[in-house]
């Protein structure tokens, strides 16, 4: 669990070019971390690669915060 959280935050930091220390679980990608719509698409792509899964578009649209990304990975890991 801890591990997934760290991996998600690392990806968010890399993709959005923000400091890992500034990323909180409740951080919203767009409102708090300055992501634009293209960034959020890329973020989902990066999560798919990191966790070797395919996130359907209707699910991807609902992942708008760090916690939601963590939850998705936890609930859908193989």
């Amino acid at each position, binding site marked *: 669990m801890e591990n997934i959280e760290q991996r998600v935050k690392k990806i968010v930091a890399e993709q959005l070019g923000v400091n890992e220390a500034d990323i909180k679980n409740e951080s919203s990608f767009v409102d708090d971390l300055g992501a*634009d719509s*293209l960034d959020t698409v*890329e973020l989902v*792509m990066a999560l798919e690669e990191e966790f070797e899964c395919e996130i359907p578009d209707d699910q991807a649209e609902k992942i708008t915060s760090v916690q939601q990304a963590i939850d998705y990975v936890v609930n859908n890991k193989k």
Partner: protein
Amino acid sequence: MPLKGQVALVTGATRGIGFAIALELARQGATVVGTAINDADAERLSGQLGDAGVVGRAIVMDVRDQEQVDAAIDLVEKEYGAVGILVNNAGITRDNLAMRMKDEEWDAVIETNLKSVFRVSRAVMRGMMKARTGRIINVTSVVGHAGNPGQANYCASKAGVTGMSRSLARELASRNITVNCVAPGFIDTDMTKVLDEKQRSSLVANVPLGRLGQPEDVAAAVAFLASPGAGYVTGTTIHVNGGMYLD
């Protein structure tokens, strides 16, 4: 060799303008994968590319088939690396007067010339976004700007690609991906060989430069848009038409 280390995908590369583009991008140093619609054409194209000393090969990819497109892009990525230059060149005509045009003629042209350009572009976008660079070059037509009797479907498809390119240019610019069009006029290819001598001479009479264009004339414009020198050019159209239509 300005395109050294780049992987270019050229759709509809078996003849005419597409073939000339494949050769020119290779001459500029790119690894070139040309698509053909069936095995026989792909085999012939592979031979021709090989004879010309091109690094790369032909693959079978029907641009109308999403599965084939995805599989082909996957294959190219595994074999050569991510596609950095996409040239959407494959296209068809089904000419008819509007009052006689069948739905099938309309749909076939829109499917191949417009939707397939979107389909293939979407498939290479992921790789280009990750690479933070990319060039999408769409071969359109002078008639998409000027109109032409008997080609409502073809003109609509080409004008559609022009609008789509502008939209993609804006959408992808922040990732350093440029999207442009090259609009050929009357080029000496199989598509225009069907015209008789009289039709040809009346066409040429409307071309200020006084000749039909050659596929190489179009290929040179595509090569420019693929080159590092065109890095600040996006969302536009280069007309290669001998002056027959001035935007």
